[in-house]
């Protein structure tokens, strides 16, 4: 029998300019997670808002692969060994829309994989990105952190959803 499953877990809206925030104690009752975000930074174009899991920020355990059209230049590449997933490309001029799917976030038999898309009109940017965290641990916390030199601007909004497969 079909089961209803696409639930909001938490919402965060920045009430001041901040460098980062963290969702903790993420329930283990879902199969996938989805982040939707509407973000502006406080400094300039092309500042990336990073995603980290379980507080891990060292060891170069993340990979980020992307295809993007940035200011009419089609680009593709990979950051093979980094300390964050660099999905959310932001500007200071306008809020921009983003989505990240975190697949099988609690499955301890697989590395953790993300699928994300971002778009920003003010800097003519669309991004299709895939991330990996090379760790078998279940994800219990997610940190969103702006690239050094800028902050997440007041009014930026982040929603965390859970999807459950039966």
């Amino acid at each position, binding site marked *: 029998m079909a089961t209803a499953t696409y*639930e*909001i877990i938490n919402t965060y809206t920045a009430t001041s300019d901040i460098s980062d*925030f963290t969702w*903790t*104690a993420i329930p283990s009752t879902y199969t996938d997670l989805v982040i939707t975000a509407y973000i502006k930074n406080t400094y300039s174009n092309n500042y990336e808002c990073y995603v980290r899991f379980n507080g891990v920020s060292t060891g170069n355990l993340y990979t980020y692969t992307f295809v993007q059209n940035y200011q009419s230049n*089609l680009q*593709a590449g990979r950051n093979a060994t980094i300390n964050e997933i660099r999905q959310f490309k932001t500007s200071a001029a306008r809020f921009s829309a983003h989505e990240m799917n975190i697949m*099988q976030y609690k499955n301890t038999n697989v590395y953790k*994989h993300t699928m994300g898309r971002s778009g920003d009109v003010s800097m003519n940017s669309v991004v299709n990105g895939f991330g990996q965290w090379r760790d078998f641990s279940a994800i219990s916390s997610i940190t969103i952190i702006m690239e050094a030199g800028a902050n997440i601007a007041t009014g930026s909004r982040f929603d965390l959803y859970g999807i459950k497969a*039966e």
Partner: protein
Amino acid sequence: MSPILDSIGSVKAFGWGKILSSIGGPAYESIQTVTSSSPFYSAQFNSIPQTYKHLQLRILYGESRTGNDVDYMRVQVNGRNSNYWRLFYGHINGTAQSGNAINNEFFYSSLSAVSAGSTYTGTFGTAILYFMDYTNANKKPNLMGWTGVASSGGFYVSAEAGMTSNTANEAINSIEVYTEATLNFKAYSHIALYGIKG
């Protein structure tokens, strides 16, 4: 000071499904999931309920070959096995980009099923596929696909594809997902079908 949010806070009580239930019921439902701790040949979804507007497949997958390689995931609908799809895709494999239109394709296919080789321990491809208005017998079946692999070594790929059937108008009643014909999904691949109401 950076905010730390307890995700089990009261906000959870306002789940999407609960909000929508006040105006007509949940809009997104889990229909069926196929997964295994051992390799398996395919995921078959038969007798799909015709009570939704759209379908979505959410997939974490690889194939069981022990070499280091990336192979294709394939999708068939209604048991069709020849000349069914018209495909348009954009694709990168590493830094090489390509795009094309293909008529008379047997399957939806996407190069993102990573093997079980040592380079890809723990690594899987990801996919989200949509079948829009799938119950409408006055339209040709369609598929909108988004797939990719992030891996620190070996292949990394990304593809987006749109598909429309070449054949007569028909509703989608069954879907089968598999890798290349002689291969299995590797253990812990996970294929989940959801229904979206309109």
